[in-house]
């Protein structure tokens, strides 16, 4: 104890009390301190797994949470119902991809097509 510049009686008494309290710790606390010291002085490799778990577990949980968020609300998981505009666009795409419709559009004999359509309407109403 460096008492050279602590001449006051108050400081001396305080130092005595505090040091006595440190020296008079109960056995259980002294034992836990000794175990803590032994653990701190173990070679790093022996305590590495404990350290890894301690510091990597929160990091792993964070990564898992971010991944789950991306999977749930990411662009690949559109869960909202298809609205009319989207339905119409899909219908147009279907027409464009329809090979028969493309063939009809390429047909040069439009008069025949109009006649066939008129016959079909007549069959529907007259039949």
């Amino acid at each position, binding site marked *: *104890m*460096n008492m050279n*510049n*602590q001449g*006051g*009686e*108050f*400081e001396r*008494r*305080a*130092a*005595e*009390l*505090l*040091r*006595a*309290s*440190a*020296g008079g*710790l109960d056995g259980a*606390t*002294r034992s*836990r*301190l*000794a175990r*803590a*010291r032994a*653990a*701190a*002085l173990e070679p*790093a490799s022996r305590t590495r797994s404990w350290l890894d778990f301690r510091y990597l577990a929160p990091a792993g949980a964070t990564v898992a949470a971010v991944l789950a968020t991306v999977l749930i609300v990411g662009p690949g998981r559109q869960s909202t119902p298809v609205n009319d505009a989207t339905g119409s666009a899909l219908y147009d795409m279907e027409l464009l991809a329809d090979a028969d419709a493309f063939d009809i559009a390429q047909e040069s004999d439009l008069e025949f097509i109009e006649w066939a359509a008129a016959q079909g309407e007549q069959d529907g109403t007259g039949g």
Partner: protein
Amino acid sequence: MALPYCEGLALSASKDEIRRELNRFLADVERRAYRMARIALRHDDDALDAVQDAMLQLARRYADRPAAEWRPLFYRILENRIRDMQRRRMVRGKVMALLPWRRDGEDDLPDPVAEAPDHAPGLAEQVDGMGALVALETALARLPPRQREAFLLRNMEGLDVAQTAAAMGCSDGSVKTHYFRAVQALQAQLGEFRT
């Protein structure tokens, strides 16, 4: 090939020696360090955790530093750890206060600081009844953290001004100021208490 082997042995012996030296150092300071942490945190397990963390960090990061530097380094790590724990405790308290599903009964859990006797009317009169040490520790816990650090490092641990400044990460002048104010505040609360 023999030279590296010898060097390896020497290195290993050196590490063992450092470990033994560090063990002696930690055994010397651990009880006082625990008392300091206990006074600041007012919780046995938290104080033990803080000391253990400080031991681990010193052993892992600074064992190769000169032994003369261990003491201020150790107490600097310890004080940082204590502050972290106090901050975390404060944040946790604020978050818990905002939780809507918090049970009403949780408000009834005793807060050790709040439960401490109020010494404002005159701690000196109560010293004999409650024990000088308890009165001193209670008064220390009520000091601003930097004053408490300066007082305990200088008074209990016996560090000189320069070592205390290194441990606290401040100038020598700041240490003197904090220490002076701590003594004044403690004397104002305790008077010239008897042991």
